[in-house]
């Protein structure tokens, strides 16, 4: 009796064919990997105050992704190549200097958006790939080719290993470049490797939810996690968890949305993911607010 109820409610949650669908499998796998990587790197992005650089890589990815469409390779490759070149350019212009950081990011970002505009124009007008703009900017996680999965895994692993190896020097140079340098840390090299890891992470996030929204998956879960815990490693764990939950629930809801108005078409996964991340961020403020309220109540007594 209760078993049948459970199956029925599961059926309500997971529309028919959800578990047998290969596109869903790929979406779940890639979404999970990307959420973990974005959570871990995102915590450093928030600690270093480099959300703007993350956003820039999203826009640079637009140029890379649309360029990939033009030459007929997969979008992930385009995102990765575009972002790695972008990271190199930012480093050369002087992203490592405190004042140069926003400047370098802004200059590279502007140039990249210009290229992206050209490539998108050529792609959309030149061939029948009308979905390109939607795919690049807003992502289409259900349309990822299964051949993309190994590359995603390898890139995710590269980023996680980089962060694990750099963990201590990176954290210390994020606190104070001066203290880190006095300890013999090559602050610039560490920063450059981190920038590369960030570039790859945003490329991964872009195939999941699109270039424009990629920052949401990078910064949102990390910012929420840092409101929930003061411990850095735990924040990475929470951020990964929030990201996975947002992506997976987003995938389920998008799959279900087939039956929703206007009907016949699924809603974009990216919308759900970003909305869920935003909700998670709002909710993450609740414990703090309760704590502050209790503290002030105690003080009044």
């Amino acid at each position, binding site marked *: 009796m209760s078993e049948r109820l459970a199956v029925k409610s599961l059926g309500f949650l997971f529309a028919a064919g959800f578990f047998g669908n290969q596109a869903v499998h790929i979406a779940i796998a890639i979404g999970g990997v990307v959420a973990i990587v974005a959570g871990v790197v995102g915590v450093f992005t928030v600690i270093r105050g480099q959300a703007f650089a993350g956003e820039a890589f999203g826009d640079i990815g637009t140029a890379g992704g649309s360029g990939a469409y033009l030459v007929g390779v997969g979008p992930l490759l385009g995102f990765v190549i575009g972002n790695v070149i972008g990271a190199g350019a930012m480093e050369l212009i002087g992203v490592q200097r405190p004042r140069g950081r926003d400047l370098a990011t802004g200059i590279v970002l502007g140039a990249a958006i210009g290229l992206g505009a050209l490539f998108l124009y050529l792609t959309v007008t030149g061939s029948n790939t009308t979905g390109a703009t939607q795919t690049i900017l807003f992502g289409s996680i259900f349309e990822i080719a299964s051949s993309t999965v190994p590359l995603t895994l390898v890139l995710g692993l590269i980023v996680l290993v980089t962060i694990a190896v750099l*963990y*201590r*020097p990176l*954290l210390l140079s994020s606190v*104070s470049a001066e203290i880190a340098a*006095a*300890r013999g840390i090559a602050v610039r090299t560490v920063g450059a490797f981190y920038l590369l890891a960030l570039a790859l992470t945003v490329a991964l996030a872009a195939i999941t939810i699109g270039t424009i929204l990629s920052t949401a998956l990078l910064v949102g879960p990390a910012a929420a996690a840092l409101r929930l815990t*003061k*411990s850095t490693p735990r924040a990475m764990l929470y951020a990964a968890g929030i990201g996975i939950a947002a992506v997976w629930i987003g995938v389920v809801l998008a799959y279900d949305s087939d039956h929703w108005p206007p009907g016949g078409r699924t809603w974009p996964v990216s919308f759900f993911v970003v909305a869920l991340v935003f909700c998670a961020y709002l909710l993450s403020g609740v414990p703090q607010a309760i704590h502050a309220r209790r503290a002030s109540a105690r003080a009044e007594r």
Partner: protein
Amino acid sequence: MSEQLLSVQGVDVRIGPRKILDDVSFEVAPGQFTGLIGSNGAGKTTLLRVILGLQAPSAGSVRIDGRPRSRRGAAIGYVPQKFLLDPDLPLRARDLVDLGIDGQRLGVPWPSRRRRARVEQILESVDALRFADERVGNLSGGEQQRVLIAHALVGEPKLLLLDEPLANLDISRGEEVVSLLAAIAKEHAIAVLISAHEINPLLPVMDRVVYMAAGRAASGSTEEVVRADVLSRLYGHHVDVLNVHGRVLVVAGAGSASDLVGHEIALPETGAHG
């Protein structure tokens, strides 16, 4: 020579045509408390940067523990000028101190009871245990400073360098920090080199002084250095050294430096600690 912990010999630093440091030489023995005194622009920070290996000298040498200064050295603990930390920096005070143990090493630190106990102990010795679990960015300037001192100490350095730790502190807070540092130096048997504008807060605890003006330095005991003739030669300009209720005032005076040979002012008894 070999018993000196820090030996600075004939250090020059030139940036373009400007001479920031001009033939600076002094030594610090193990466990000694040394004040690096001078006004803004005297070259104190540059000298500290040379000692830390962040600035290459144009001439001269720095030896630490008898060896040439290498960039990778845990022998020096360094506390930069405060208010360096971002206001929202989401890192616990405890974690910043933990990074002081081996923050320069690659890889993820493996938590252990011993590590935790060591951090706890250092935090307690600088009276920072109360706010150990707060985020460093949310702490007051004085609290951040204690955390940074703990960060510098936890690596068990032989020499602790502090850049203007008394700037922006009121007088009683300044005294607290000085006596804390003196106690730490004694307890851990480490040498302390501390830069400051003002000599007076350091007088009760200082073993040696390095007095800087216009990139040049005079060093020795306070009795040897804080004298009108020595400081006048250093400034290249006549100064008087006044002793007011056990405090020292260095004031610009009339006449030329050569008038002052033999002119001496008795310094207060500096043995009265605390």
